[in-house]
């Protein structure tokens, strides 16, 4: 075989070598700037089953893009065809060149430009016998079809099921243009070679044959390969500085995540890796309700990640409601909410906050501690309802923050005041464990989430009131009458997506109402969230209006939610009544005098109170 070199391979080789050097440097940087315990996790995980699982996940997500497929099949096909198709072209090209050259250790450009060195089988026969040439053409066709969808998405995004796409920066546009031209350039270059030699399969062979009918392709072979090589090299040099840096870094993220590394303020390496792994695909823009409520403001996660990556941290850090819809939709699985919170500086607000609460009457501890939360105090109907539910169930309970002087600390944490939040946590943990209670019921999903996720409360079960009411209903501790109205349920972000409590409130609604008209969509943001200090009232109202419109498509009679904040926000704009799930339950309670058999059970009440606890 003649020598496997031609000067046209140089642009590619230079670009590719640069890319490899950058990638190796980055991996080392990511690893050495991990936190000490995270580093140990990676080292111990490296030789375990987790590596294999991470490999499977890499194939599923980085190549096949299964998460994107699940949400939007057209978009999934576009991403899959580009990633998987390109990967297969590289893989088959490598096998083919190794098979024919008989040399496993050859320069990388040999397999990339193999068709130039070996034009392949002759044209008409190669179309019917599926050899290497056939498979290469098939995957090139797959990539080109994905490219067609990508171009369509850029100019007519609605066809691809995207209301909005990302507005890219100049460097990203340049890289995008290079990427778009790479595959047509490859097709042309291969077709020139095939046309001149009378070889090739159905795609390159046919196009080459067509070329040879009009002109002599042999003089265009070298220029077309030069263009292809230059485009590849150009793209590889641009890659580290653009969003395409996600291509090599996403697998690294998947491996680190599988080993148990999570985003934390002290982990600079993992933060940088997460920022680099964002592909700016724009799926988060589509999920964000602020895209409708505040059009033109680049507040969505992909814009935010880009600005942090480029060391520009504007006030975007406060302009997010932390509802988590983008995080749920993110195909890379980035921890977008912690990422946003970590950029909010700790300013020492609340450093001397004092909290007072009641633990028991006359030194007698109670089994159930009720924590209403700040927001619930602005919606006293919830407190009244919970009180009547507790009493109806015969529970022995204490109202911890009856004077409204307590806070769970999560609002401070969401605003970046981590130290103050930790102080409050210490104080409350101490109080709760002193109280002797074995059940802590809260009416606020914000409190519920931090109690559940961060508080260390041995021997105390934390319940949101929707869970508590559901248990009472299931054990017949309270009875309700069913209404003839239809209800729709709004799942609060901190309760549904944040804490995974979706089914309990829905079960209560089934017991209370004729029909549950809740639409089957990802939980919406009410716009009242404490996560976004920088978002003004008008924008919040716009978010709320959009959410109510979406929820009331089925023409329900009442809107039920399970968060005082959602209730307040929706009440201000909704045309149908808005009720908290506890208010709905309390309003339809069957009073004890209507239930004569309850008196006989009186003796068992105390035991059951313990059982509920």
């Amino acid at each position, binding site marked *: 075989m003649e020598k496997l070199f031609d000067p046209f391979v140089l642009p590619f080789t230079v670009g590719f070598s640069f890319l490899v050097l950058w990638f190796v440097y980055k991996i080392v940087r990511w690893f050495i700037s991990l936190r000490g315990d995270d580093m140990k996790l990676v080292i111990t995980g490296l030789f375990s089953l987790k590596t294999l699982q991470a490999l499977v996940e890499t194939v599923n997500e980085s190549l096949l893009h299964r998460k994107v497929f699940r949400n939007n099949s057209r978009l999934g096909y576009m991403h899959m065809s580009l990633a998987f198709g390109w990967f297969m072209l590289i893989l088959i090209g490598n096998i083919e060149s190794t098979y024919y050259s008989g040399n496993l250790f050859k320069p990388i450009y040999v397999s990339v430009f193999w068709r130039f060195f070996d034009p392949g089988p002759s044209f008409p026969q190669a179309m019917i016998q599926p050899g290497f040439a056939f498979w290469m053409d098939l995957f090139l066709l797959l990539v080109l079809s994905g490219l067609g969808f990508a171009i369509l998405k850029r100019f007519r995004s609605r066809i691809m099921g995207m209301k909005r796409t990302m507005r890219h920066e100049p460097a990203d546009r340049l890289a995008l243009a290079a990427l778009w031209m790479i595959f047509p350039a490859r097709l042309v270059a291969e077709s020139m070679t095939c046309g001149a030699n009378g070889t090739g399969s159905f795609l390159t062979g046919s196009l080459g044959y067509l070329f040879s009918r009009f002109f002599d392709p042999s003089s265009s072979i070298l220029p077309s390969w030069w263009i292809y090589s230059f485009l590849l090299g150009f793209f590889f040099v641009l890659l580290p500085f653009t969003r395409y840096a996600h291509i090599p870094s996403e697998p690294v993220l998947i491996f680190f995540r599988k080993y148990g590394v999570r985003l934390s303020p002290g982990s600079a390496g993992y933060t940088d890796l997460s920022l680099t792994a964002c592909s700016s695909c724009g799926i988060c823009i589509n999920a964000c309700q602020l895209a409708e409520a505040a059009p033109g403001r680049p507040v969505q996660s992909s814009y935010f990640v880009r600005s942090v990556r480029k060391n520009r941290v504007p*006030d975007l850090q*406060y302009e997010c409601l932390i509802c988590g819809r983008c995080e749920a939709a993110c195909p890379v699985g980035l921890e977008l909410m912690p990422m946003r919170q970590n950029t909010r*500086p700790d*300013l*020492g*607000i*609340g*450093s*001397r*906050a*004092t909290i007072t609460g009641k633990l028991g009457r006359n030194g007698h501890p109670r089994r159930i501690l009720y924590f209403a939360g*700040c*927001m619930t*105090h*602005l919606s006293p109907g919830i407190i009244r309802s919970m009180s009547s539910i507790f009493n109806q169930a015969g529970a022995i309970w204490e109202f911890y923050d009856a004077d*409204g*002087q*307590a*806070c769970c*600390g999560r*609002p*401070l944490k*969401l*605003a970046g*005041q981590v130290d103050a939040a930790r102080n*409050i946590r210490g104080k409350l943990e101490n109080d709760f464990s002193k109280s002797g209670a074995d059940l802590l019921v809260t009416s606020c999903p914000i409190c519920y989430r931090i109690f559940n996720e961060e508080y260390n409360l041995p021997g105390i079960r934390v319940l949101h009131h929707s869970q508590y009411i559901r248990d009472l209903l299931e054990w017949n501790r309270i009875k309700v009458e069913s209404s003839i109205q239809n209800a729709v349920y709004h799942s609060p972000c901190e309760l549904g997506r944040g804490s995974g409590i979706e089914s309990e409130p829905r079960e209560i609604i089934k017991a209370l109402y004729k029909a549950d008209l809740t639409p089957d969509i990802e939980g919406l943001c009410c716009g*009242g969230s*404490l996560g976004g*200090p*920088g*978002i*003004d*009232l*008008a924008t919040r109202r716009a978010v709320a209006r959009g959410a109510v419109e979406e929820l009331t498509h089925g023409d329900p009679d009442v809107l039920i939610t399970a968060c005082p*904040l959602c209730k*307040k926000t929706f009440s201000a704009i909704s045309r149908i009544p808005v009720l908290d799930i506890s208010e709905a339950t309390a309003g339809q309670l069957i009073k004890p005098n209507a239930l004569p058999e309850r008196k006989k059970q009186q003796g068992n009440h105390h035991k059951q109170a313990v059982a509920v606890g």
Partner: protein
Amino acid sequence: MDAVKSKFGFEINQGRHIDMDRIDTRLADEISAHVRSWKACLNCGSCSATCPGGVGLRSLLLKLSTLGELTTLDTCLLCGKCFLVCPRGISTRYLIIQIIKKRREYGKAV
């Protein structure tokens, strides 16, 4: 001195007189550029009345242009009740964050 004063039967309340020399609106201007909704403030005091942390946000905002000590924000819980009760819909949490942030940036210069 006291004997002389008592003759008049009244005294001037020193604590409430307006000293134009002490007014410096630079910080307040910068903050209101960030939190534009602040301009709608009526000084109604709903925020102070609802605050579980005991922060007197109303008087704090009134005193902002005289740059007195703002230590009362140390007990703020950022719970956002003041935002919910505000009749003008002022983003009070953002206002508090910006007050602290800007004061840090200014340091002792202002």
